[in-house]
């Protein structure tokens, strides 16, 4: 039974991986040579956009490490492909928005991403974090 269960589970994960961001147990090794770069802003309630590392109580690279996310401000290789990388990046924006209590003014975090997909492009895409409850923070 154990043998059959493992075989079925592994074969299922190999198939499911084709429609997942991180391809867990799908073993798609070194899938792409795509690249990306992000400009990240803290958006204030009045719509003002402030670059995330300017006049902030925090530093991005202290909050987000590894998986190609430590320094997203420069053009670099997409870790395990764009889909994997953007899945992590969206998660990072949401996590930073939720875990920076000393920032009492930012409504949400927004990122303008420029990327190439295996040499095609450049393309642009905008990512946005969850909204922060600025009133409560104050």
């Amino acid at each position: 039974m154990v043998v059959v269960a493992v075989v079925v589970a592994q074969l299922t994960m190999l198939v499911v991986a084709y429609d997942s961001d991180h391809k867990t147990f799908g073993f798609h090794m070194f899938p792409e040579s795509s690249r990306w770069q992000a400009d990240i802003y803290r958006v204030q309630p009045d719509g003002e956009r402030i670059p995330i590392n300017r006049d902030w109580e925090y530093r991005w690279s202290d909050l987000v490490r590894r998986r190609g996310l430590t320094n997203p401000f420069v053009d670099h290789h997409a870790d395990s492909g764009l889909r994997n990388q953007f899945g992590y990046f969206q998660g990072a924006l949401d996590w930073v928005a939720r875990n920076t209590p000393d920032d009492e003014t930012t409504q949400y975090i927004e990122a303008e991403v420029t990327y190439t997909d295996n040499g095609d492009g450049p393309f642009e895409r905008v990512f946005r974090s969850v909204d922060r409850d600025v009133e409560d923070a104050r």
Partner: protein
Amino acid sequence: MNRWERLNRFIDAEGDLRALSVLRILLGPIVLLHFGDTFRDAADGIIYSDRYWLPYFSWYPEAGPGLYEAMLWLCLGTAVAMSLGILSRVTTAYTAFFVGYHLFLSKTHFAHNRAFLLILLTTVALVPNDRHYSLDNLFRRRVLKRPRPGSTPLWPLWLVRFEIVCVYCASGVSKIIDQDWWSGRVLQLRAIDNRELAIDEGAPAWIMDLLADGDVQWWFSKGAVLNEFVIALGFLHRRTRLFAIWAAIPFHLAIQIGARVQVFSWAAIAALVIWVSPRAHRRTLVVPRGHRLARWVPRLDWFGRFDLQPDDGSAVVLTERDGSTRRGRDAERQTWLHLPPTFFFVAPFSRWRD
């Protein structure tokens, strides 16, 4: 005997899994390498939840910071103990548990090489891995005088073999159906991106120019993908297995040099031991006393391939598993082929037989 009975008999078969004891020893340093950054962060008082992390499941149990750190440092100890064979079954089980717990703690912890490592650790944890090359076994033999039998159920071995073939085939299939990969574009762009860095680190410029050439990569990418299938399918048959094992070694070393794949190459090379036959001492080696093989075979026959019989004769005689015999230099060469440290160097000059 019908098909089901044959399948049941296959799954229930028993054999000698000393190869997995060798794998247990190799996995200890790989686990330490795998957790290198995590240990360094923890030494600075930083754990995963202090920075961005992304849970898979809301219900997944989170250890508090103190407990997590204790579990992490305990894993350092159990990985070392696992390699040394101290309380092997317990320390291997804990190491596998913690590597798995950590992997599923956050999506950001996931990487294919880590999943691969977990598969290997789980397999070794499932078998009685303490019966060879362990301080446990030494203690049992020398002090308790109660050695345990070497024969154990083989189904974990069949499972891990299936998993490893899956890894190579899944990787190959994903590249074949990706037009950018199959056309060579992915590798060409990678070579172009890394050109300056590679030259700074000593790679000849002409090689990097060659690798950045689209026509070269058109062929090279196909060779790389097909190599994955040659290795995976080669593992499955006795007649091709030795060649597949031999081909896998430079393949993984090349990947390690050309790309940052964390512990994948080391784990994949270590995992090659699972393809050793689980039938020990099936080759009889008659060696003249004083011959160098009489000294080296007991030291290097880590997988128990030979039944060594020192003799007063003048020639080395090797009786293979099928009953055929080899004599003299042919027998010597075939013996070196089946000793792990010399296998890679002798194999190109030998007949590729399992």
